């Protein structure tokens, strides 16, 4: 479909169907049925197989008409795209629609206290007993797990195989007695994450994603989607700016819940956007050493945008060149965030000792200084990204492993 056709067809469809007095879920079911909830998904999975260019037109029409789209916030996107890539027809039918309508919120259950960077070392156990998977173990860093209806779970199903081969990927119902989510407070005072304890929790046999033992391969799909999100950053518009009506209220509540854990995410990226203004207002811009550090920061930040655009253009042109843009972009985001925190500190001087609403930018600068350490850890540490870049892009040899052979014999925490 050409951009003009899409614009015309979608506009006509919206004019005929959009009704802000409907409930959010009713409206989204209509969207799903019409194929406008996720037009970039394949035709057989509620979509239309649209390209990024075609999607840009769709998003533009939705935005200009002030129409509420499918649910996108939070970790549900990770679940949806992984199910799209690896689910069977029945799973796609069953799980994707409630993701799009917002009926089901999702969380990610990958990291464990004993396996952080070494995600494949997970020791949460899943055993097939009487036709069901029984899960026992503890997960950590689970955003929004306390609101989630479902979780994407990596658990060990075979302890005699080498570690990467003994994992399986499950879709687990979070609303059951064997699953308990507890908030985890961070050094910046927020509690965006949870610990999740699973005690004889149950997963139906048909909720295994892919085959038994394919958990690691499928998890890498999820992780690469997650890394792309880090490099891209987040920016969602509040529906309250868009329109009035019950559906906007409902949508605003959904976003508020889903986005609450992310309120400090712009701060962990360093708030480069505030640098020039603060330097000018405070007069720090007259200080030569500050100017040098600002120039370094603003150069890096601009170059990172340009490099990301180049990588996207390469992907569009179908180049086979190996560019794990996710890893390079994520490593770059850490470097930029650290430099931004450094420059904000130079601009503040002793005021950097203060925090809270009375401090610079109503506390945002203080929050930046104590949130930046997260960006080089979350979603794969800088060190892991460097391993990925050096091994997969540069083809440098892998380090000798100490974790081959049956998992049960490997040293672990």
């Amino acid at each position, binding site marked *: 479909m050409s951009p003009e056709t899409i614009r015309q067809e979608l506009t006509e469809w919206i004019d005929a169907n959009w009704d802000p007095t409907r409930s959010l879920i009713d409206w989204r079911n209509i969207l799903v049925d019409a194929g406008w909830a996720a037009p970039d998904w394949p035709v057989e999975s509620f979509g239309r197989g649209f390209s990024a260019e075609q999607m840009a037109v769709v998003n533009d029409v939705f935005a200009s008409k002030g129409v509420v789209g499918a649910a996108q916030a939070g970790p549900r996107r990770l679940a949806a795209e992984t199910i799209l890539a690896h689910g069977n027809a029945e799973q796609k039918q069953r799980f994707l629609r409630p993701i799009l309508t917002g009926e089901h919120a999702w969380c990610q259950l990958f990291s464990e206290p004993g396996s952080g960077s070494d995600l494949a070392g997970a020791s949460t156990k899943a055993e097939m007993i009487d036709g069901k998977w029984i899960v026992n173990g503890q997960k950590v860093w689970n955003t929004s797990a306390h609101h989630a209806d479902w979780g994407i779970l990596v658990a060990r199903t075979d302890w005699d195989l080498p570690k990467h081969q003994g994992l399986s990927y499950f879709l687990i119902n979070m609303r059951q007695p064997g699953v308990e989510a507890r908030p985890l407070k961070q050094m910046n005072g927020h509690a965006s994450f949870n610990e999740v304890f699973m005690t004889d929790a149950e997963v139906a046999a048909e909720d295994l994603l892919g085959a038994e033992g394919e958990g690691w391969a499928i998890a890498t799909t999820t992780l690469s989607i997650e890394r792309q999100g880090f490099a891209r950053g987040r920016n969602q518009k509040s529906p309250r700016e868009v329109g009035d009506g019950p559906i906007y209220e409902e949508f605003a509540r959904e976003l508020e819940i889903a986005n609450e854990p992310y309120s400090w995410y712009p701060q962990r990226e360093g708030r480069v956007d505030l640098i020039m203004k603060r330097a000018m207002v405070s007069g720090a811009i007259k200080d030569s050493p500050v100017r040098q550090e600002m120039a370094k920061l603003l150069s890096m930040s*601009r*170059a990172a945008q*340009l490099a990301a655009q180049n990588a996207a253009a390469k992907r569009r042109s179908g180049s086979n060149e190996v560019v794990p843009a996710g890893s390079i972009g994520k490593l770059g985001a850490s*470097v930029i965030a650290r430099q931004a925190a450094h420059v904000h500190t130079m601009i503040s001087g002793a005021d950097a000792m203060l925090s809270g609403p009375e401090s610079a930018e109503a506390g945002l600068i203080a929050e930046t200084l104590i949130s930046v350490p997260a960006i080089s850890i979350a979603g794969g540490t800088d060190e892991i990204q460097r391993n990925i870049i050096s091994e997969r892009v540069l083809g440098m*040899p892998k380090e000798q492993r100490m974790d081959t052979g049956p998992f049960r014999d490997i040293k672990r925490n």
Partner: protein
Amino acid sequence: MSEYTEDQEAFREVVAKFLQSRSTTADIRRLMETSEGYDADVWQQLCQEVGLAGTHIPEEYGGFGFGPVELGIAAEEMGRHLYCGPFFSSSVMAGYALLNGASEANKAKLLPELASGSKIATLVLDSVDNPGHVGRQLRVSDDLLDGVAPIVTDAHVADFLVVLATGDDGLGVYLVDPDTDGVKISVQQALDPTRKLSRVSFSGVTSTKIGHMAESALGKTWDQMSVALAHEMIGGAQHLFDSTVEYTKVRVQFGRPIGSFQALKHRCADLLLALEWAKAATQHAAFCLVTGDEPESASMAKAMASDVYMEAARTAIQLRGGIGFTWEEDTHLWFKRAKASEVFLGSPHLHRERLLVHLEEAS
């Protein structure tokens, strides 16, 4: 946004292929020991077969009529292969100065000679540190030029000198025949032996004024030269990076390739990131010279390319260990070019100051 067209990539191929066979490390080592510093036959081939000397010079003046993007591609390949010759002095520096400052009649007379390679020129600046200092030392009164330019590239082989000097009505462009009485060109000992440097002094030299160089024209010239130099540096940095990564895959210590150690892998990954950024900024700067957007981009490119070339050079030696510090190994050839280019046409800190002035004005 900076994407090359197929034609531009094909142009790169032509230049790269030529330099691969005509600028080998054996050639570089031979030429850097000569007083001329370049191979006249190879230069003529480069001008006549590839037509490179006129890359960015408009067709009306006998050039190819390409712009800063293609010039950047050529410069990048020259940097990668460490080409020894008067291209940067004659085509880039003198060429841009004439294009931005010479009168129409003088452009029509002089540029075709540069574009064809029949003459070699260089740009004589009394400061290659800072555009704000240009014209402080070299002065013209009653058509007589006096003063000293301590660092001039390729003056010893130039057929004519394009000199920026301060006259009665500000900064002017002057044409000087190097054989004129009162011109003294002393070849300096250069840290980078692949780019020859001279001290050029003028004592009551008869010179012809061929144009005016307003402050804005000088700024533009400086930006254009800096972007071309940044491309040259990116090419050199890429060569050092690629060769170093390959070395870590074959060099064995402690029973394993040294590239399997994380200490080295992580350094290479960081360098790749810095290189990708500097490359993106540099390519973008060439596109901005065409469109006139983002005036800060030229200095951004020069500062980032300078820093990444030096980091690549330091890493290239460090990861090779002792062998990297020997004369026999080739890395030092690029290291010295990296160090000289870092400060040529403005150190990184000067360019960072320049780019911040632009960003301040924009906000």
